[in-house]
């Protein structure tokens, strides 16, 4: 498969089992530093599972077993020396359903920097919160009500709050697991715009069901089917000139 510039995360021969069932079979993928990479494929093809191996969120699922090498800047994230807690700060994650903490908007964003000791004092913390909310395009909407509960926001605002929360700890990679599937088109457009702005600063990997979305936001696209990686390449190539028959059938809507 084609190797993008300066690969940030590199996965080699990854297998994942849930108990006896194999969810991912021999997937090798490199993610570029400056790219948005989209993972597409029909339901149950293992794209979310694969995403969750990249920050070891699969560790929390009983019976999940991961094999193969995944490196972040050349460092094996499954080695015993790797601190999982720090890894998850470096590789942030945005989930399918907006899941703000039932705390104030400020606390939602401040929580990460606080537990990682990223702010020396209160003004500095407030600065990080403001910067993160600005970067997530939410500042103007919430600056007057930072003490209100994060769960009181609309769905799209909640999801941007979750993105602000993820970037507040200054990660190197952001994983997004179908971040727009619970949102209306306008909120989706805002998130996509946001992804454009975040590109380059963070390596972004996004799982999506929506092929138009993959075409709009990503530079690289990986097509998964039945737990295997079928095709990986530049997004424009995948959508206009797929090499594999299965890819072509999927993006033309033959199945999915």
């Amino acid at each position, binding site marked *: 498969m084609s190797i993008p510039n300066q690969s940030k995360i590199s996965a080699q021969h990854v297998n994942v089992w849930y108990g006896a069932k194999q969810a991912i079979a021999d997937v090798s993928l490199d993610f570029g530093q400056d790219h948005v990479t989209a993972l597409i494929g029909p339901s149950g093809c293992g794209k979310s599972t694969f995403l969750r191996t990249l920050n070891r*969120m699969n560790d929390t699922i*009983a019976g999940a077993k991961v094999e193969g090498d995944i490196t972040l800047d050349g460092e094996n994230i499954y080695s015993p020396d790797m601190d999982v807690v720090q890894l*998850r700060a470096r590789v942030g994650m945005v*989930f399918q359903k907006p*899941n703000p903490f039932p*705390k104030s908007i400020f606390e939602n964003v401040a929580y990460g920097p606080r537990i990682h000791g990223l702010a020396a004092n209160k003004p500095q913390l407030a600065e990080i919160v403001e910067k993160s909310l600005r970067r997530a395009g939410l500042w103007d909407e919430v600056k007057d009500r930072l003490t209100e509960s994060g769960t009181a926001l609309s769905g799209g605002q909640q999801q941007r709050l979750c993105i602000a*929360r993820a970037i*507040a700890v200054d990660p190197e990679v952001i994983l997004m697991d179908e971040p727009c599937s619970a949102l209306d088109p306008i909120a989706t457009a805002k998130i996509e715009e946001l992804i454009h702005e975040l590109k380059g600063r963070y390596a972004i990997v996004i799982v999506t069901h929506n092929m138009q979305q993959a075409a709009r936001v990503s530079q690289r696209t990986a097509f998964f089917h039945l737990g295997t990686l079928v095709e990986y390449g530049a997004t424009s190539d995948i959508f206009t000139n797929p090499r594999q028959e299965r890819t072509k059938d999927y993006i033309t809507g033959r199945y999915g």
Partner: protein
Amino acid sequence: MSDIAVAPPTSSTPDRVPTDWRTPEMQRRIRRRYGAEQRFRLLGLAAVILSAGFLAVLLVTMVMNGASGFLQTRIALPIDFPSAGLMLDPARLHGPGADLALAGAGIERATDAAAITAFGKDGDKWLSDGAWLNVREAVKRDPAILRGRSIVWVPAADTIDVAAKRQGDPAAEAIVTKLQAAGAISTGFNLPFLTASDSNDPTRAGIWGAFKGSLFTMLVTLLIAFPIGVLSALYLEEYAPRNRWTDLIEVSINNLAAVPSIIFGLLGLAVFLGTFGMPRSASIVGGLTLALMTMPVIVIAGRNAIKAVPPSIRDAALGIGASPIQVVFHHVLPLALPGILTGTIIGMARALGETAPLLMIGMRAFIASPPARLTDPATVLPVQIFLWSDQIDRGFVEKTSAAIIVLLVFLLAMNSFAIYLRNKFETRW
């Protein structure tokens, strides 16, 4: 839109007959449905009314029987101090030697003598056995009364007290009528009932000792059962691997919650008194025993509350690099706390009303002074109620009901506090 709706079905296939919603059978079905709905509502209403009725009957009976327990009949006893023959030096009544001086003064004999003088033969039997204590207090409060004749209000004897509240035998009723005519009898709030401890004499028996015993016992129970219960629940839900051992532990805890309480009493007797040699009848042993009983309830409620915290919150916290312990203490526990507190209320309320296990560890002893330390012999409210309900003296009937009222108030206060705490945590998000 409406055009389409009214338009007759033109292209209906012959095998599809439109459903007739107006056949008698349909009508019957509708009536049956409404009937079932109605019956269910009435049954539910009846159930609510029935349980509310039982509660009302219970409360009304308790208040009616127990209210008089908070009242005390007093008799005005005239005492001519100079002729009472008290061996007392008024000069010594000021300062630290006062109690000693009063102890040897023969006040009890003088009180009896004064009663006989005032009310005739058997007059001393009209007064409570502890009447002289009131005389002593009166002298202590104002030594000046020793110089002349004065009237001291003292508690009436049990029989008079009962008769004055219109429940007594004819002889006592006659005495009450006589005293009433003389204006020498009155009824007032029975403060000693709330400040004194158990006594053989119902006019002097109080609830304070048992109340304090309950307080100590509950404190020990809460301090042991709550942290251990919550930590067990957290460990089992968040850390323990799912295997045969944890299944076994889960089954054991569920069974433990259903074990009859007297068995916990036997366990406490064997372990705390037998093995560890802790003091008999002490509130710390009672608290530990009740903690054993309460813990499973807290563990079960805690686990359910923790399970109910949405996994998305755990994911969110883990996803920004919170360690497992941070996830637990920053997110899971605060969200589960209202549920845990509900379980704790139920467990503590059950522990507060428990009698059987405490009988096994000797908390049924006659305790005439309130416990000062956790290791002092003590009794608790339900045991006190049990003991008083067993007494032959008629005066204890109303004391029993009054003690039940005190127990219910204690329970209500404890629950209100817990519910206040729960609501406080709930509104936080």
